[in-house]
C-alpha cells in the first residue's frame, strides 16, 4: 500500500498535475462545502456575470450536506454525497479556477474532460463514513446561503482529511480501473 500524499489547500496546477488516479491523499487547510442547491445558485450567478459569494480559485468543493453539530462538535456527521448531480455545474466552476472536488460516484465524460482541460482532480471520500470523516473537520462556518440549511456553503478547516484520487488531470478513472481489475 502506497503512503498517502499530504496536500495543503489552496491547490496550484503543479499540485494537481502530479496526482494520479488511485493516489491516497490527506488534505489539510480550508475547503468549501456545496451540493445541489448551492451549485445551482453559483452557476446562475456566473451565467448572469455576477460575483460569487466565495472565491473558488485554487479551492476544493466537498459535496456534502452535514448533519447538525451536537453541542461541543465542530460539525455533525459529514460524508460525501453522490457527485453526478453536480455534473451540470462542475465544468463552469473549473473554468473559473476550481481545482478539486470531493464526493462519491461516477462523473460524466464532460466533467472528466474539463478536469483535463482546466487542470483539476476529483477525489472520493468514503461514502457513509460520515461520523469518521467528521473527525478530520476541525472547524465549520457558514459563508453563504444559510437559508439552504444542510445545503448552505460552509468553510471547513480540515486536517489530514482522507480522500483517494478517482479522476486525474490525464483522464484516468479509478472506478473503471478498479472494476476491470476485479471483474470476473
Amino acid at each position, binding site marked *: 500500500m502506497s503512503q498517502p500524499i499530504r496536500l495543503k489547500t489552496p491547490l496550484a496546477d503543479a499540485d494537481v498535475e502530479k496526482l494520479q488516479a488511485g493516489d491516497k491523499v490527506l488534505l489539510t487547510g480550508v475547503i468549501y462545502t456545496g451540493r445541489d442547491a448551492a451549485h445551482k445558485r453559483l452557476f446562475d450567478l456566473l451565467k448572469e456575470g455576477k460575483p460569487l459569494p466565495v472565491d473558488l480559485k485554487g479551492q476544493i468543493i466537498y459535496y456534502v450536506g452535514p*448533519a447538525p453539530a451536537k453541542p461541543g462538535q465542530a460539525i455533525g456527521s*459529514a460524508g460525501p454525497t453522490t457527485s453526478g448531480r453536480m455534473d451540470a455545474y462542475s465544468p463552469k466552476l473549473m473554468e473559473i479556477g476550481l481545482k478539486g472536488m470531493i464526493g*462519491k460516484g461516477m462523473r460524466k465524460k464532460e466533467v472528466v474532460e474539463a478536469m483535463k482541460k482546466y487542470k483539476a482532480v476529483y477525489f*472520493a471520500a468514503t461514502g457513509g463514513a460520515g461520523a*469518521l470523516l467528521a473527525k478530520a473537520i476541525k472547524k465549520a462556518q457558514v459563508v453563504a446561503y444559510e437559508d439552504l440549511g*444542510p445545503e448552505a456553503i460552509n468553510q471547513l478547516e480540515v486536517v489530514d482529511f482522507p480522500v483517494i484520487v478517482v479522476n486525474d488531470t490525464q483522464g484516468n478513472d479509478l*472506478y473503471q*480501473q478498479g472494476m476491470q481489475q476485479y*471483474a470476473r
Partner: protein
Amino acid sequence: MREINAKQITEVVRKLCIDSNLYLGEDVLKALDEGEKKEESPVGKEVFQQLKENARIAREEQVPICQDTGLAVLFVELGQEVHIVGGDFNAAINEGVRQGYKDGYLRKSSCHPFARTNTKDNTPAIIHLEMVPGEKIKITVAPKGGGSENMSMVNMLSPSDGIEGVKNRVVEWVKQAGSNPCPPIVVGVGVGGTFEECALTAKKALLRPLGQKNPDPQLAAMEEELLTRVNNLGIGPQGLGGRITALAVHVEMIPCHIASFPMAVNINCHAHRHKEAVI
C-alpha cells in the same frame, strides 16, 4: 379492544428515528466483518475497516452513522383491535419524526420537489400502513438515504422474459449504478404485484435480516446466484474495485396479473438502517 394513546406512538417513533440512525444492526456489523475477510482488494479492505470504525464512532459518540439520515420511512402493522386515543395517528407519527430528527441532531432532508426549499423538520414521513389481527402496533423506522434510493427502478417486463430476464436486469442495473449507491450495498428485488406494489415489495425485501435467506428454495437459489453475479462485477467497496459489491441480495415475490411481469430494484447502502418496536 385495546386503547393506545397517540402520545405513546410519538415517543416510540422519536426513539426509533434516533436509534436507527445511530446504531447499526448486529447483522450488518457481522456482514461487514465477513466482507472485510473475503475482500481481496487492499483498498477495499481498508474501506471495510473505515466503515466498521465509523459504526463504532457513531455508536459510542451517539452521532449519525451517515450524514444522510434519510427520509423517515415507516412500516406500521396496526392491530385491528387497537383503538387510538388522544390524537390523530398520522400526526402522532409525524410529531415523532419531528422530535427525533431535532433531538437526535439528525439532518433534515425533506424538500419541495420544484422549489427545493427544505421543510426543516424532515416531515412528512413516508408511512406504509398495514392492518393485521391483534391488539398491538408494530412500528419499523427505516431511514432512506437519497444516494441509494436514486438507484431504484421499476420495470414492467413481459412474462416471456422469465426468471432469467429478471436476473439479468438486476445485474445490469447494479452495474450501471456502480459506485453511486455507496457499495457494499444490499439489493432488494421485488417481483410481481402491480407497478406500485412491486416497488414496495422491493423495499420490504430490504427489511429482512442479513444472512437470512428467502424460505422459498427457488428464490433462495436466485438470491445466491444474484449475489455471486453482482460480486463478480468487480465494482467493490465504494466502487474502487474489489470482490464485495453487495453484502446481500434479497428477493421477494407476490402474484401478478396474467398479462404482467413487474420487477423492481431498491438498493440500500451499507448504512443498512432499520429499527422496530412493538407497542
